[in-house]
């Protein structure tokens, strides 16, 4: 509260009680976002960093979705505005805010409330969002019969029905399932080739490296083994990223409970947790402790790393890169928004520009526009492509004709907009070092 002089009728006891967090939130399950809302001094950094607001006239922007809506909700009978569903959860506002207002936390809770209370559970929108959020379930079925699934998904009629019934844009090519998942490969391989109780890492591969880009998972294993690490692959569920973005907080919590428990066991045994997808590491590091009160959630956050980040801090990876060489190739690198939020947006460019044979160019700080499941919705497709236009343009002007990024859905968007083949930094690291 301000320390300005209080009006004479001011009654300290009731007024103070009114602002007590316990009173604002009757249940301890909710979090008190008041201090965060009060930190906002309306500098507009979040609004000018928001990729959706820049192209979508109707979107009121993160400042409204965050502190302003939070305040509106306190004392009046106001429902969450449906525009919260147009937020893509890129989390750039978090990265922009000089006052550390927990914007994405406010957006996530508001979206959760909107979906829970206002979205018709029998609507096609809800069903589609639920399906997109639970990609892991879909992928685990599809990858049982990968060739058939790929064939069916590739059919024009599937795409047509997807658009008409489900609201999945027919412009998008559904990603192909690998004929052998990462976990199948891992099992067949007999687990880690290195045994080292002092240097253990637990790999959080996420859904995409398991079902689709298995080569990223394999590269992670081989690179870490090269540095003498024993890699563990604990049981795991989806990180929850697509669920947060769709307001499916119950689904996300269900998955998070398994991840916290299973990865927590590995941490207790001395392992650090490594993710190759920057949205997965983001979820484990920031969204879990912001949204869920689960035993061990803080510990998981503190022990989770992005793969390259871990190596930069624990190994002399710069030296290793300096002494290596690969076949000549120029890359157009895009930093995913969620990498940016973890302070990782520059590491691939700065590391690989010292690698003989490689030219690498940062294609700018624009958002790719797909934001996970966002660009997979017909009504968001146009916005998604408008946001991506700047990145496509920069990619086409870059020297490289191969793209690079850490995020699997950014990779989809980069490929969709330019036709380039897209690689993960771990794949290049594998080529250089293994």
């Amino acid at each position, binding site marked *: 509260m301000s320390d300005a002089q209080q009006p004479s009728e001011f009654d300290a006891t009731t007024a103070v009680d009114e602002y007590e967090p316990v009173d604002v939130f009757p249940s301890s399950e909710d979090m008190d976002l008041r201090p965060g809302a009060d930190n906002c001094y309306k500098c507009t950094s979040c609004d*000018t960093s928001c990729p959706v607001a820049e192209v979508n006239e109707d979107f009121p922007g993160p400042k409204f979705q965050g502190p302003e809506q939070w305040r509106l909700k306190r004392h009046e009978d106001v429902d969450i505005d449906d525009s919260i569903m147009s937020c893509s959860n890129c989390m750039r506002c978090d*990265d922009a805010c000089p006052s550390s207002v927990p914007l994405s936390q406010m957006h996530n809770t508001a979206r959760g409330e909107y979906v829970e209370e206002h979205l018709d559970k029998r609507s096609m929108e809800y069903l589609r969002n639920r399906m997109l959020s639970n990609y892991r379930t879909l992928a685990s079925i599809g990858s049982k019969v990968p060739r058939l699934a790929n064939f069916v998904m590739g059919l024009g009629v599937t795409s047509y029905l997807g658009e008409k019934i489900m609201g999945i844009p027919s412009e998008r090519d559904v990603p192909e399932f690998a004929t052998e998942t990462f976990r199948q490969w891992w099992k067949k391989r007999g687990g880690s080739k290195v045994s080292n109780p002092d240097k253990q890492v637990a790999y959080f591969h996420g859904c995409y490296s398991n079902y689709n880009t298995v080569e990223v998972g394999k590269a992670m294993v081989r690179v870490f083994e090269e540095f003498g690490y024993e890699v563990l692959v604990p049981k795991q569920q989806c990180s929850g990223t697509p669920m947060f973005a769709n307001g499916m907080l119950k689904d996300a919590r269900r998955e998070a409970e398994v991840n916290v428990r299973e990865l927590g066991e590995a941490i207790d045994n001395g392992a650090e947790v490594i993710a190759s997808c920057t949205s997965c590491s983001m979820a484990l590091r920031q969204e879990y402790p912001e949204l869920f009160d689960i035993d061990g959630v803080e510990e998981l956050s503190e022990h989770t790393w992005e793969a390259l980040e871990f190596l930069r801090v624990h190994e002399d990876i710069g030296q290793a890169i300096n002494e290596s060489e690969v076949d000549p190739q120029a890359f157009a690198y895009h930093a995913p928004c969620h990498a940016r939020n973890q302070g*990782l947006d*520059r590491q691939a460019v700065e590391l690989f520009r010292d690698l003989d044979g490689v030219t690498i160019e940062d294609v700018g700080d624009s958002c790719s526009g797909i934001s996970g499941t966002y660009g997979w919705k017909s009504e968001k497709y146009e916005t998604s492509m408008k946001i991506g236009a700047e990145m496509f343009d920069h990619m086409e002007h870059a020297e490289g004709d191969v793209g690079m990024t850490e995020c699997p859905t950014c990779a989809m968007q980069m490929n969709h907009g330019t036709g380039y083949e897209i690689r993960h930094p771990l794949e290049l690291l594998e080529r250089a070092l293994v």
Partner: protein
Amino acid sequence: MAIREDVIVIGGGLAGSMAALEAADGDASVRLITHKKSTLRHASGLIDVLGYLDEEEPVADPFAAISELPDDHPYSIAGEAAIRDGLARFDEAVGDTYLGSHTDSNALLPTFGGAVKPTARYPAAAAAGLASDSRDMLIVGFEELTEYNAGMLADHLDAADVPFDVEGVELNFPGEYAHDSRVTRFAKRLDINEDVDHDGQTMGARQALADAVAPHVGDAERVGFPAFLGDDHTADVRADLERELGVDVFEIPMGPPSFPGMRLADQLKDALDDAGVHISAGNPVINYEADGDEIEAVIVDSKGREVPYHAEEFILATGGLVGKGIDSDRDGTVEEPIFDCHIPHSDDRYDWFDEEAFGNQPFAHFGVRIDEGMRPLDADGEPEFANLRAAGGVVGGTDPVTEKSQSGISLTTAAVAGQRARERAAKREVSQ
């Protein structure tokens, strides 16, 4: 530990970026650590060196006026040569996108409040708006922008006795917008020349804007717009409007969000990249490790995990009260949160401000005091650390907002801090 550099700069605004560029001019490896978006996003993009000594008349030549500043002013400590070094480094970083280097004298530029501001460097986009130019002027405003009114701006300029006729006109920006639309939408439309519906036709946004303005130009030989004429392609937007209107077009800096400030931030980032400066953005520096009076590492809070970054020399460029390089508390504390450098202040917070809003505000002077090597001084006037230097808003001892010297102090302190850090890091390498 794997992360080690010669020089680490903390803070990614004007001072931090310029200090890093200065330090990287040689063999030193330099890393810039920056947390959130800097205050450049709210800045006018104008580079002031010294605008006022008292409230009355603007300073004509900042260099001639420096001798009148008190001995503990950052300019007096750094010296005139350092101010020139700082400006030269800035000119090199921004190339021909900024003007003003041809003279020591201040230029006078209109602000969005209709005042005339003395400044040392200004974006090329603002050049045709010089108040010393006698050509007649039209100011264009938009109904959609609540914080900017062209008629009021023109009246204020007129009242300031500018040597030309000035008119203001308020239009609707072509296309459909919400009542409170953001300037980023207009800028983006112009930047990519998006199609809009105007006068029953569909045309590029630049053409539509020119068509809307053309009937109002009259005898004016230059037309001023709020500073949102594009983002990445601002020179193209301006050139297209000039061609269509047949007169010079210029931008008038606005309040936040400020495109001139954001564009400058982008340019500085490119310059840092070209100079090979490593950038770690997104996580804050929260602490340090020292051996006696030598800092060995700063500690970065990487989402709850503390990661040390080692270096030989460190530059603190975290900003002032707004940039959060200085923190204050109602219990009477005023502190520099990373190294806890001494900041002279009264323990009674009621002494921090003057009752006159535009009076001599003590809080405006908050900041570290420095020696001639830009090293923050402790309460006894001794350097806090042998290898820590300060640059920009974190440096106190004057009120840069009132005297219009904020950017100049940033450039000057950054130049000295960067040079000293570079030289000392090189010397240490030889001796090791």
